[in-house]
């Protein structure tokens, strides 16, 4: 049924349809409305889940880790400082191969404290072993949660998934959303069943000490499984399309008007909506521009990116996060896709924008396309205010 919903409400609805046995979350702006809505559903008797109130995000992650280790489905959500506080447990969840789904309402990281949107929080956890999806709009956020449980719980995958949605823009924005029927969800997502669980009838130890004789194989296995996810995800996306009718191509990247494009921006998350708008405007004026949207950031779909960009002459990579002291994260990975390849863009340039919630406007995007014509190759911060950089200690 189509409903006009706030992003957080829509996500709470789809999570309730996935029927997690355990939900544990600690409130943090801008994630708060999601667990609030789920807690209300549980209190009103509409959702038969155990909602565990915890004293921190570290505990929230630990509770869902324990829950999934007993063989049931679980859910948590967080943001920014909360995600970083979970950090230690998140590595454990991936290492233990527990298929938890977490919503990260993307927010800047302190200091200075800032509650608005950028993607520094989830990008900082990119090496944790979690699969990471980035949503462009609320409908996509809803659908990616369903797909997240499906891929996470696949018997050959068994990895946690972080669905990253831009704070405020997607958590607090309202949109007309199609919330699927319960029966359709049941068809797509069967109940979670596994023999890999803590069970007193069949005792086993999870999370044992693995010394130098064992540890490396556990990491190798996660690395290989991420590569398998790149092959499996398009099949699941196809099945999703058959049942629900919505098409996410292969669920890895979305190429928007790139076929004959001379300039393409690569980006992730809600800014892709703005870029599509800018692309349409510039196309009307005869400019050959396009967008490559990264939906799945981990595993990193290098081959799809190569195919989409190999004949594009100029590429701008738009990061909403930094790897302080080095190149921006998405930029350095896009560039490495083309190392040693004969067919490659002539120019791949790094742009950083929208940190700490600074608006990325249509003008910002058009500026990026304009700057891509210049000879400069240095990284550039868009909409920076140099007058604020005069402070002395």
């Amino acid at each position, binding site marked *: 049924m189509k409903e006009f919903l706030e992003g957080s409400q829509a996500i709470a609805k789809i999570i309730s349809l996935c029927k997690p046995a355990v939900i544990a979350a600690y409130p943090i702006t801008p994630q708060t409305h999601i667990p609030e809505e789920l807690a209300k559903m549980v209190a009103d008797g509409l959702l038969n889940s155990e909602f565990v109130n915890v004293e921190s995000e570290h505990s929230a992650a630990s509770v869902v880790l324990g829950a999934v280790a007993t063989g049931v489905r679980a859910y948590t959500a967080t943001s920014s400082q909360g995600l970083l506080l979970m950090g230690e447990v998140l590595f454990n969840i991936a290492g*233990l*191969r527990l298929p938890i789904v977490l919503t990260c309402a993307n927010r800047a990281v302190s200091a200075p404290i800032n509650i608005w949107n950028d993607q520094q929080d989830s990008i900082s956890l990119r090496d944790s072993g979690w699969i990471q999806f980035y949503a462009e709009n609320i409908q996509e956020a809803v659908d990616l949660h369903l797909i997240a449980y499906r891929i996470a719980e696949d018997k*050959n995958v*068994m990895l946690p998934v972080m669905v990253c949605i831009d704070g405020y823009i997607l958590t607090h924005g309202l949109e007309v959303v199609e919330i699927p029927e319960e029966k359709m969800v049941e068809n797509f997502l069967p109940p979670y069943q596994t023999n*890999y669980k803590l069970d007193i009838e069949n*005792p*086993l*130890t*999870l999370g*044992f000490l*693995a010394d130098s004789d*064992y540890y490396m*194989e*556990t*990491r*190798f*296995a*996660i690395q*290989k*499984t991420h590569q*398998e996810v790149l092959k499996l995800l398009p099949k699941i996306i196809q099945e999703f399309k058959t049942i629900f009718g919505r098409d996410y191509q292969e669920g890895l990247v979305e190429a928007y008007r790139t076929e004959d494009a001379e300039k393409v921006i690569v980006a992730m998350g809600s800014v892709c909506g703005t870029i599509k708008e800018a692309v349409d405007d510039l196309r009307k004026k005869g400019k050959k521009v396009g967008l490559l949207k990264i939906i799945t950031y981990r595993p990193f779909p290098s081959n799809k990116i190569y195919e989409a960009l190999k004949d594009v002459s100029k590429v701008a990579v738009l990061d909403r996060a930094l790897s302080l002291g080095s190149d921006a994260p998405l930029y350095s990975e896009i560039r490495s896709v083309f190392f040693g390849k004969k067919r490659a863009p002539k120019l791949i340039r790094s742009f950083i924008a929208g940190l700490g919630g600074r608006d990325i406007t249509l003008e910002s995007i058009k500026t990026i396309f304009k700057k891509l014509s210049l000879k400069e190759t240095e990284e550039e911060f868009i909409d920076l205010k140099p007058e604020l950089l005069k402070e002395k200690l």
Partner: protein
Amino acid sequence: MFGPLFCKPLTSKNNKTGSWRTTQRPKFLQTNCIACRMCVLICPEGCIEGKEKNTFHCDYDYCKGCGNCAEICPKQDIIMVVEEK
């Protein structure tokens, strides 16, 4: 793909921690033992056995040579001796 993920009960017996011993091993003299069981309780490997006085001994396949048993024995009836190969 999965690496080593879980252990079944009792499988840790496959790890023969006796190979960790370096310079010393405990020697159970079995002369002044009063069967207080302190050595059994303190052994981190749980590899000391015995019931009656002067019957206590350890399993050198698992003894790491930490010396806790010799340290705690109230009768100095366990001593650490040079490891013999």
